[in-house]
């Protein structure tokens, strides 16, 4: 009974859209909004669509790089550093990392576009200028590193908060005991702290994988899938472009929905996989002893 409101929310905002997306994916719906059933045509087309294959590879590159380098990697490094330095400095540093997340996405993207533009006065090229190097058109020459940086700077803060909270909840006795035993800071991190934040690490990895899979907002704003032939187009962006954003206003809700359905299925499969591999069930069970 108490769970009814949350079930209702899940039903209306998750299950119903998934069901509608699934149904639309079996049609060739466009702006005529006609439910012309075409069976599995959109899925067959997807398999033979060379662009879909390229976009799939892009998505793997994007999710893997952003996740390992920033959403988990940088988040962990920032947390570890900031809990091992004086509290006030650590807090200030973490607050800085929250800035990208609290900045409106269009403003944030615009700041990046200014920073990486070709002019010698743009931030990146201005730094190059100190070393006597020629200005570079970063978005054209190195689109992927920029896309990963743009997303990573936003994504890192989520893991940072979770990891910092977990690190701070480690009883101080453990750290003191390790120090008494002569452990260095690195050894404390390796043998005490990291094993104790295993669950948050796995949770953030699982959660952020799923989150990155469906994210496209910053890529849309910064490269819009370019600069070349679907260079930075990821799966969710491809689906969006087909379904909503064509120059002539011609849309493919059916094919776009089929692409989105694949994301839903992929998300479910990965969720189950993470659940099993990371044994997340153990995270949820009642503790055997009361601490």
């Amino acid at each position, binding site marked *: 009974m108490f769970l009814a409101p949350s079930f209702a929310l899940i039903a209306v905002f998750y299950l119903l859209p998934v069901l509608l997306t699934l149904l639309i994916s079996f049609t060739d719906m466009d*702006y*005529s*909004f*006609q439910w012309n059933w075409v069976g599995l045509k959109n899925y067959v*087309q997807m398999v033979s*669509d*060379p662009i879909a294959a390229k976009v799939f590879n892009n998505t793997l590159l994007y999710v893997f790089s952003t996740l390992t380098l920033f959403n988990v990697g940088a988040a962990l490094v920032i947390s570890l550093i900031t809990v091992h330095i004086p509290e006030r400095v650590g807090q200030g540093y973490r607050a800085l990392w929250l800035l990208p997340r609290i900045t409106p996405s269009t403003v944030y993207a615009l700041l990046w576009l200014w920073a990486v533009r*070709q002019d010698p006065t743009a931030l990146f090229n201005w730094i190059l200028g100190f070393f006597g190097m020629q200005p570079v*058109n970063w*978005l*054209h020459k190195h689109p992927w590193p920029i896309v990963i940086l743009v997303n990573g700077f936003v994504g890192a803060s989520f893991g940072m908060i979770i990891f910092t909270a977990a690190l701070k909840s480690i009883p101080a006795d453990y750290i003191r005991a390790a120090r008494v035993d002569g452990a260095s800071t690195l050894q404390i991190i390796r043998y005490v702290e990291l094993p104790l934040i295993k669950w948050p690490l796995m949770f953030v990895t699982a959660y952020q994988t799923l989150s990155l899979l469906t994210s496209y907002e910053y890529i849309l704003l910064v*490269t819009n899938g*370019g*600069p*070349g*032939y*679907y*260079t930075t187009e990821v799966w969710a962006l491809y689906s969006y472009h087909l379904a*909503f*954003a*064509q*120059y*002539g*206003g*011609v*849309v493919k809700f059916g094919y776009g929905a089929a692409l989105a359905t694949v994301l839903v299925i992929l998300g479910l499969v990965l969720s189950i996989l993470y659940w099993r591999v990371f044994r997340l069930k153990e995270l949820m069970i009642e503790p055997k002893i009361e601490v």
Partner: protein
Amino acid sequence: MRRRGASKPVTILAALIVGILIGAVLGYALSPKAPVATTVTAPSGDLEKLRAENKQLKAKVEELTKKLASAGEGEITIKVWTIGPDPPSEYRLKNFQIAADMLNKWLAALGSKVRVKIDGQFFVRPVEWGEYKNKFYLAYKSGKAPDIYLTGHEDVGFLAANGYIIPLDDYIKEYWDVVYYDVIPTLWEAVKYQGKIWAVPQDTEARPMYFRKDILKKLGWSDEEIAQLPEKVKRGEFTLQDLLEVAKEAVDKGLVERGILHRVKEGYDYFQFYLAYGGRLWDAQSGKMVFTKSAWRKTLQWFHDAVWKYKVISPTQFSGDWDKDFHGPFTQGKALFLSGGTWHKGEWVSKGLLTNEEFNENVGYMLHPAGEPGKKPVTLSHPLIYTITKQAQERGVADVAFLLITLVTDPHLNANHAVKSSHLAILYSEISDSRYKKEPFLADVAYMLDYTTFIPNHPKWGDYSRIVFNVLRGVESGDLTPDQAFNELLNGIKGLGSDAVIIED
């Protein structure tokens, strides 16, 4: 004391009257004489025609007013959606406000208590065509569609087939002698679908290849050679290959930073290069789009060479910015050629990037040159149209909406738009409008319509265009070789189905 006090205001008043009198005398003596009134007579034929049209229009208004009178007092709101996206095209909406004012005055004069109000939207960048059309369809589905919807002519088939708009044949027949007889006939072809007329043309344009005269002079061209360039292009003696050579020379000599500029976002302009190589877009007999393999191969090779061999187009042009990578470099004389549209001239002048004098002195315009000797130079037109939605009919305001469209399809009102935004006339009588005639640019480019092609009115045209844009972006960025690009393009087009596109060698 009292008498002295009472005499003061009288003295002041007397002085004032004397002052006014002196002022009036001086004013009369010194002011320039008014010119002797001259009677300007319009040619009697034109005058009679105008009178007849006016009479007919008034009769229509009167008839409509009687209909409206039954609705009693009140205000009829007509929702109008228009787009630039270039800001100078604002008269696409403003003309409706002018027309509504005019109509309300007539209604008042005829004793009606009904008034017409325009609830208008004029969308400009950053809203582009795709977003504008999205808004329309979603508004329609939520029952909030505009009554009058401006769009590109290529949408007529889709809008008509799916019941978004109503046919206008009966209205046009009714108002034919008022104004529609005067519409340039080819434009009617752009608004027909399955034998019916579904819209009224709003404007048209040509897409010239602009060039900087001052740069050509610095390259050693004589004034005569420069003046002759559009003619040479017209005769097919100056080809796209020559364009590359001249642009390269200007870049190599350091006269410009960029040789050739093209639009920075998706659009239809790129198809001109394909047409210049002899490509066909439309097969009127079968009603299908056409993919001419040989022309596409040459087009892709040309874009590749322009970027990577001649280095006259920037590899980042497609990810550029309208101001920094298109308008700016050309108007500042940092680029030699610009593949643009007639409306860009209006944009440059209204944005203050060029004055009319600077434009006339330094900028020339020609057709897009033929791809190779023996082929024809080209341009492309994309007439915009006013449609009336089914929801307007359901609300019972289609009659008023059409009357307003008829009022804005007026040579003088449409000339407001044409002159301000550098679009071309849709009416024969508009060409002789005094403001239109004062704009030599519009007269100069009129011949280009003899070389124009319309965008196909096909539901899958947007797909064709998107595939081409993505492939060209791949070629310019260096992601695709011309061969790879051709294969991607061909595969993409084949995916549209043989019922949509004819693939020919």
